[in-house]
């Protein structure tokens, strides 16, 4: 089966997000008052796997070994089957 995984990487709660803060300030210059702006990174991965569970497990391993840094990041995985 072919799956598409959307991996979203967030800074852990409480960590400074200089990019988000800068964007919030720039929005203010344009007259928009956002309560907060958080930056995230998103990666879209296509992979073959035997089952949805297997695909999720593989993507989870990818996140732990490379895509996220557990010291500073949380991540979430959205998975769907594509054909």
């Amino acid at each position: 089966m072919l799956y598409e995984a959307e991996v979203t990487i967030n800074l852990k709660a409480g960590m400074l997000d200089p990019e988000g803060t800068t964007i919030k300030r720039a929005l203010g210059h344009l007259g928009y008052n956002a309560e907060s702006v958080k930056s995230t990174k998103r990666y879209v991965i296509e992979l073959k796997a035997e089952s949805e569970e297997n695909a999720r497990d593989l993507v989870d391993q990818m996140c732990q070994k490379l895509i996220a840094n557990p010291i500073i990041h949380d991540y979430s995985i959205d998975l769907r089957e594509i054909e």
Partner: protein
Amino acid sequence: MTVAIIQFGGSNCDNDVLHVLQDVLGIDAELVWYKEEKLDDYEAAVIPGGFSYGDYLRSGAIASRTPIMDAVRKMADNGKPVMGICNGFQILTESGLLEGALTTNSYPKFKCEWSYLRVENTNTPFTSMYEKGQVIRIPIAHKDGKYYHDDPSLQQLEDNNQVVFRYVDENGNPTEAVNPNGSRHNIAGITNKTGNVLGMMPHPERASETIMGADDGLLMFKSMIESGRK
């Protein structure tokens, strides 16, 4: 002894380190391309600064997963001195050879300026020739240099004397005003538990000749070479 200077695609301080070791100190040093899988012939390694793999994913993340890093890990496990400067520090934290992480400066701008550092621990292969508490002048050049670790881990680093360099003012005070990037505890450089792996954001190779404005960094390379000879 021969020092390996590890080159990745995007390393750009490799030749500066080579110049200091070879031309200033007269030490055998070689640039080693990242595809090399063995470093058995070298007594020490330097991972230089730069922008390996364009800082894709995270600074240092891609380089830290290349095969040569297994060889660097082996050197570290055997007690040989391994020194990571700037991007090299980022690669060492990403590889797990050093604790913590380097994240975007609290004011998200590339900072290139002189900094004062206080030598916190002289019981390492890189600082044995300095005085404890000595203030040295070494430049920084980075955007992802904010050292981050959680509170319990920071406390452990402090308790184990793993914090080697701290950003300070001219008089040696680690104030918030002179912290260039928001690093926790003003940390500019740390070692592993055994002290033979050093990571630091400032560039000692850019302060190793008086013609460059300061030569405070030279003792770091001299110390490393002395300890490598033992």
